[in-house]
């Protein structure tokens, strides 16, 4: 029997449909359907100037808009051959890690609500507010920041912001201990997570799954370490990985990443050099191609931009990590029960905005 989970279902964060074929309670086949949120962003970008595209790439992912507009700016910088000033690189590292924490907290809150734990939802959204406020003080907006620019960032950090950032890290580390008690102290949470939705390492690599689901399967692959961009090569942090490959490992990898993000924010804010934070980008890009890859909170994001000598991109290709991960959904699901679907798919941190583009 085929069951439609979605397009409007509490499990589907965003608008997508998961069709599962069941034999009794056991899942024998699954088929994800995406495309409900298609806005044609790649095509819209073709008739905007390079500057005007930045706010649109913010709208790719509501959970981590900073990392997507940053990725776009990096790809255009690659096309134009621009060098970003060191201060801008450190600011970018700090805001990207704040965005990673905010994104993971939103996932954690939604995951807790999926698994019927309302306290986790409220706590997660409460602490996300700290980082959203911090980003608002810096950029002027709460969700769609429009902060990175081609050749730097739009403006300098306000006075006192660095102290706020350090205080937020201290606060976050206290709260992370609290989460570990609340989540892992809950018998129901552990029963629904441990040993559920196992993805083996070889399978994860063959399917192209990246980000926390891949690192939870035992592969130590993190673009921040393997192909360092911005100032990540000067930061001291570890790649978080587990070997189990189940839902609990994915949860644990994200929690560990939040610890590491706090470490990176501290280093980036304390080491931040003085100087320019932006260079003037040329109006017209040369004919050629530019490509950039970054470690998004959800996996490996890539943008490929083609310039034809005018002030507009000829083509913009977006590689979404979640599009690949959701395509691998049958491998996660087959063999488990219907009740596990919510835990497995919720644990993947779906973001349909970038998936459907």
């Amino acid at each position, binding site marked *: 029997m085929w069951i439609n989970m979605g397009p409007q279902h509490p499990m589907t964060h965003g608008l997508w449909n998961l069709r599962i074929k069941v034999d009794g309670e056991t899942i024998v086949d699954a088929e994800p359907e995406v495309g409900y949120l298609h806005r044609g962003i790649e095509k819209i970008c073709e008739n905007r100037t390079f500057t005007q595209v930045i*706010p649109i790439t913010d709208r790719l992912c509501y959970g981590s808009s900073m990392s997507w507009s940053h990725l776009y700016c990096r790809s255009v910088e690659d096309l134009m051959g621009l060098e970003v000033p060191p201060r801008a690189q450190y600011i970018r590292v700090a805001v990207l890690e704040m965005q990673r924490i905010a994104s993971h907290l939103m996932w954690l809150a939604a995951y807790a609500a999926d698994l019927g734990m309302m306290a986790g939802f409220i706590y997660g959204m409460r602490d996300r507010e700290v980082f959203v406020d911090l980003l608002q003080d810096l950029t002027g907006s709460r969700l769609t920041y429009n902060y990175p620019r081609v050749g730097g960032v739009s403006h300098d950090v306000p006075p006192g912001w660095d102290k706020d950032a350090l205080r937020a890290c201290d606060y976050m580390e206290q709260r992370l201990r609290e989460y570990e008690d609340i989540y892992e102290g809950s018998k129901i949470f552990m029963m629904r997570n441990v040993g559920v939705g196992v993805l083996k390492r070889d399978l994860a690599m063959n399917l192209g799954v990246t980000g926390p689901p891949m690192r939870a399967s035992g592969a130590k692959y993190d673009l921040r370490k393997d192909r360092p961009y911005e100032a990540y090569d000067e930061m001291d942090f570890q790649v978080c990985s587990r070997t189990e490959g189940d839902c*609990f490992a994915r949860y644990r990898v994200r929690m560990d990443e939040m610890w590491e993000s706090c470490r990176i924010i501290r280093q980036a804010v304390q080491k931040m050099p003085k100087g320019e934070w932006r260079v003037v980008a040329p*109006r017209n890009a040369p004919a050629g191609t530019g490509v950039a890859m970054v470690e998004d909170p959800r996996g490996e994001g890539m943008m490929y931009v083609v310039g034809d000598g005018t002030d507009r991109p000829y083509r913009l290709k977006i590689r979404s990590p979640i599009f690949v991960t959701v395509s691998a959904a049958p491998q996660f699901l087959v063999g488990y029960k219907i009740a596990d679907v919510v835990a497995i798919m919720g644990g993947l941190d779906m973001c349909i905005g970038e998936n459907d583009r």
Partner: protein
Amino acid sequence: MAEAERGKVSFFGYVLRPMMRTGKQLVRSLVLGKPNTVLYPHQKLVLPQVYRGKHTLDFKKCIGCGNCVTICPNDCMWLEKLEDPELGKIERPGVDLGRCLFCGFCAEVCPTCALHMTTEFELAGGDRESFKLGPKDIRDDGFAGSFKEERTKRAVPTLDLSKCTGCEKCAGECPEMCIAMISMDKVGRKKPEINLAKCSSQGKCAAVCPEKALTMTEVYESYFEMPQPKFVLESCSGCGACARACPAEVIYMLEMPGTEKTLKDGKKGKPKKRAVFVLEKCVGCGRCFKVCKFEAIEMPGVSK
């Protein structure tokens, strides 16, 4: 820590540990009076200065160039012709908040820092027409500079060609070697051209100029590269439409030697007027290009 790493957890451990955490929060918010929310209509959050809310426009600083209209990704701004008792006939931008995405590019690109975004965020309305704010609705002449931090200013040398004699003293004085003397076609003399990317704003060229043709003018630093007009002297008819259209006073008309018509009796007539550009002040709005009927101004990347 995972269950396996922490060892076996008893039933009471599973119940008491989470309860201790949630109980702490309960005491904090109920007894100690530190709630995490605000009672919105009565209490309001303090918004940062950089917050992007409703627009505000300083009529006296605005020059009506329309760069905000050009850069808007959603085409939600337009220029409106107005009759102001103080300022005369002017053009000022209006904004349609129903289509605005609050990216803040209009305020960022403004060459005179006249357009800003306030912290006002309560912008809900009853019908779509109420979102269309004309220039008078967003006018606030005291706002700019009083609340938001302005961009840094930079002094650049600007040339008055009618006084310049082509003595090359400025080029010799420049510490950055950014002034090049280029010869003007058919005129038979040289004029200094300043490379603004290298200029360090020390003002030595203006100080040394014997005719006071070079003066230092303060302009706001811009982070956007705007298109610049290219002038074709042969096609210019000297009508002066571009000089009247220019909002930033970049173009002025000058009698150019070498353009005289030879009269029937062999004498030369009066020299004709030709447009002269002070590109250091140019904001790249493209109005001169749009208004020129003789295709004497080229602007790559701008369509008419």
